[in-house]
């Protein structure tokens, strides 16, 4: 019964989205406030019904209702409870349901917190949201229904893919989807602005918090996915330039560009058309990401051709929204008036530079990811574009971008003084050069480029620090004044500095871990000791263990440094009986920001055990840096000016009340 309720709730959500797709739009055209307001109610009710539908599927999973095909194929009665929850989205159908749940959540959030939006803008935004929702409900109901029943319920399920039986599945996909789908709001705002043919600084102020929130989720989502791959896959890589990873990186790059261009639009009323275009592109790339992953086109062009139902459906959605969005853009964008003149050397100029490089970086990833597909379908020739290509083409775009970052935040609006900024950045240059020299002295000249990477990282971090110290006039004014200024600084200024410093931290982590990481691949016997980068690893034998739905063979190792034991490592190999599949669980030991990484290979005939032992210097900085970036996003989001639905600062009522005039933003 429950699955049918879920199914029915989804159909009702579809019905509501159809109403929402048309009525508020019509209301906005005919200036009928009642019709426009309808969008808010339907958006909230849509969320209620999708949530009900999602709850129904979750119930089926938690109660192991194997009469539902989806549950039968992806669950097992002995699975720990947490994985019964997470396996709801550990498959195609369920993950699409999560996608629309988040879409409905964002739609309801706009309806609930958008009280200060102009009523026509809100109506149009909700209508565009409903178009997206509508197409995805149809996709789920027609091609990917998670509520399909089996005529006769099997006794046991086929179990969730063992690799997915990890806490990573609880964190990574929801965050990633919050990011992907979050950009739909920016998209809807962009289309609504185009429909109205009007856009102003206030528009940018409304769009920014949504974009910022989506960007934060996407940042953490990608980063946590990277960490999951790092510890789960057993060879300690953190970024593979896999098409599926690229699919999530592209919206991130476009979204980062959007975040910056929206600043220019909000502060200076310039770059309007470009901002709109980026908003369309960011969500289009999210859709392309969904398409790439969902349609099977990545595995092979032929897979796509043999079972094209889903692929063609998503392709249709893609063409409709991207094509439609861009057509509307081409038609209506000339109506938008450009404003705000600025000199090339200025804050605006720096942000344009940022946008140029981020967009080209995004284009590089896009072309690299899709070129093999295009070439194969056009000529039949197969080529591979992998990590070596991307490393070579991506780095030259990101290095100038990072180098320009500290300059950008220090330049004044309209017309900046590059010479003055360079002088103010002298301390950061100094720190960078010291870092380069120290790295050369410590690590030798074997890797020529890596010390410069470290230097760049330090320059970026200290550039962000200088941005703050300059603003509070540290050491130039009494400390108390600086302190009160620091408290008075807008949170978004703090956010910018923190997020920029985070990128520097990530860069240092990437350079260190990929340049000075060491590894030993050996076969060890019990009692034997292996040394790596000053750590001694001793193998103390194997143990058999029984887990809830797997058996595991674990190795027991101790790690010591200079004869002092610093920790124990217990990597294992698990066998999952339901799918008769095996996974390898690596063991990690953090030493400060560095990690020791151990994974098991085969047990040889002579009783020795193959192991892979890595030392990854400062590897944790990669993910810590991204968390710092996201924290910068939170700081910025908490800025009063941007807070979603924040009440206006309470002003003391003047003695003679004046008419309450809102400043024209």
């Amino acid at each position: 019964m429950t699955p049918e309720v879920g199914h029915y709730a989804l159909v009702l959500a579809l019905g509501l989205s159809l109403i929402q797709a048309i009525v508020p739009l019509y209301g906005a055209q005919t200036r009928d406030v009642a019709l426009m307001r309808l969008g808010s109610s339907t958006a909230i009710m849509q969320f209620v019904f999708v949530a009900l539908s999602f709850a129904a599927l979750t119930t089926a999973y938690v109660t192991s209702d194997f009469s539902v095909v989806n549950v039968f194929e992806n669950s097992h009665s002995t699975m720990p409870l947490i994985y019964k929850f997470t396996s709801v989205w550990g498959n195609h159908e369920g993950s699409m349901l999560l996608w629309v749940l988040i879409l409905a959540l964002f739609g309801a959030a706009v309806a609930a917190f958008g009280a200060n939006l102009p009523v026509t803008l809100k109506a149009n935004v909700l209508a565009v949201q409903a178009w997206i929702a509508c197409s995805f409900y149809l996709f789920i109901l027609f091609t990917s229904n998670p509520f399909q029943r089996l005529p006769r319920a099997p006794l046991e399920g086929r179990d969730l893919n063992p690799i997915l039986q990890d806490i990573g599945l609880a964190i990574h996909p929801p965050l990633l989807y919050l990011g992907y789908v979050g950009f739909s709001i920016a998209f809807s705002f962009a289309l609504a602005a185009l429909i109205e043919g009007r856009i102003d600084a206030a528009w940018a102020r409304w769009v920014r918090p949504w974009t910022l929130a989506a960007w934060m989720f996407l940042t953490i989502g990608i980063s946590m996915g990277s960490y999951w791959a790092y510890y789960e896959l057993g060879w300690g890589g953190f970024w593979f330039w896999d098409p599926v990873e690229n699919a999530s990186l592209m919206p991130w790059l476009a979204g980062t560009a959007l975040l910056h261009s929206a600043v220019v639009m909000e502060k200076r009323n310039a770059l309007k058309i470009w901002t709109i275009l980026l908003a369309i592109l960011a969500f289009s790339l999210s859709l392309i990401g969904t398409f790439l992953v969902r349609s099977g086109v990545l595995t092979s062009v032929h897979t796509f051709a043999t079972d094209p139902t889903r692929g063609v459906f998503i392709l249709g959605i893609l063409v409709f929204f991207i094509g439609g969005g861009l057509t509307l853009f081409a038609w209506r964008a000339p109506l938008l008036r450009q404003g705000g003149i600025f000199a090339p050397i200025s804050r605006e100029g720096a942000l344009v530079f940022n946008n140029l490089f981020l967009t080209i970086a995004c284009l590089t990833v896009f072309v690299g990811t899709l070129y093999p597909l295009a070439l194969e379908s056009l000529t039949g020739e197969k080529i591979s574009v992998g990590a070596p290509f991307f490393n070579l083409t991506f780095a030259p775009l990101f290095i100038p971008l990072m180098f320009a970052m500290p300059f950008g935040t220090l330049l004044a609006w309209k017309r900046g003084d590059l010479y003055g900024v360079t002088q103010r950045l002298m301390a950061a240059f100094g720190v960078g050069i010291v870092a380069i020299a120290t790295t050369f002295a410590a690590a030798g000249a074997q890797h020529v480029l890596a010390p410069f990477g470290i230097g760049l990282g330090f320059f970026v971090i200290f550039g962000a620090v200088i941005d703050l110290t300059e603003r509070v006039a540290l050491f130039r004014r009494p400390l108390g004044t600086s302190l009160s200024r620091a408290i008075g600084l807008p949170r978004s200024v703090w956010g910018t500095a923190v997020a920029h410093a985070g990128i520097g931290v990530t860069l240092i982590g990437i350079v260190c871990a990929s340049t000075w990481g060491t590894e030993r691949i050996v076969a060890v016997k019990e009692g034997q000791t292996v040394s790596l980068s000053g750590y001694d690893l001793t193998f103390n034998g194997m143990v058999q263990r029984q887990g809830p739905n797997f058996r595991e063979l674990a190795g027991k190792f101790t790690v010591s440094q200079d004869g002092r034991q610093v920790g124990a490592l217990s990597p294992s190999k698990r066998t999952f009986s339901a799918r008769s599949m095996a996974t390898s669980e690596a063991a990690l030991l953090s030493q400060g920001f560095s990690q020791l990484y151990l994974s098991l290979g085969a047990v040889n005939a002579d009783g020795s055990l193959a192991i892979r032992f890595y030392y990854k210097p400062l590897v944790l900085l990669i993910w810590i840096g991204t968390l710092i970036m996201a924290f910068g996003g939170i700081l910025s989001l908490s800025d009063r000016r941007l807070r979603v639905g924040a009440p206006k600062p309470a002003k003391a009522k003047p003695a003679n009340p004046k008419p309450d005039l809102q400043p024209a933003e």
Partner: protein
Amino acid sequence: MRRFVIIALLATVLMPPLAFAVQPDEILKDPALETRARALSQELRCMVCQNQSIDDSDAPLARDLRLLVRERLQKGDTDKQVLDFLVDRYGNFVLLKPPVEPQTLLLWTVSPLMLIVGTGALIVMARRRRNVTLEAGRLSADEQRRLDAIVKSGSPD
């Protein structure tokens, strides 16, 4: 093993039996040669996997290719000779960084070209905008006459 995200997002993935990427028995005695073998392995694609290098992959084919690379290196091949040998056998598909050829020209040039075009467009727009500003800042002959009159008389009209 395939990449996590694929697994996280695709419904089902056929898994090859779990093994190990580089095995201890594959490693060459000569560390310099082994370093070259590892570097080459990272440039080569495991052709039955999704976008994985043979260095990362634990598929049996990847192991065969790794052994082949090492065999060629031990016979004294240069890095380029090893790559050429594999391209002869398997085509460009085996290279993770495709060579610059007519079919891949667009792949290699589109980003640098767009960077140049984008920069050019920005410069042109900045120039045009400046001219507009200058134009707007200049007074028409009539306005100039009025201004002169004002300056001369010392009071507006």
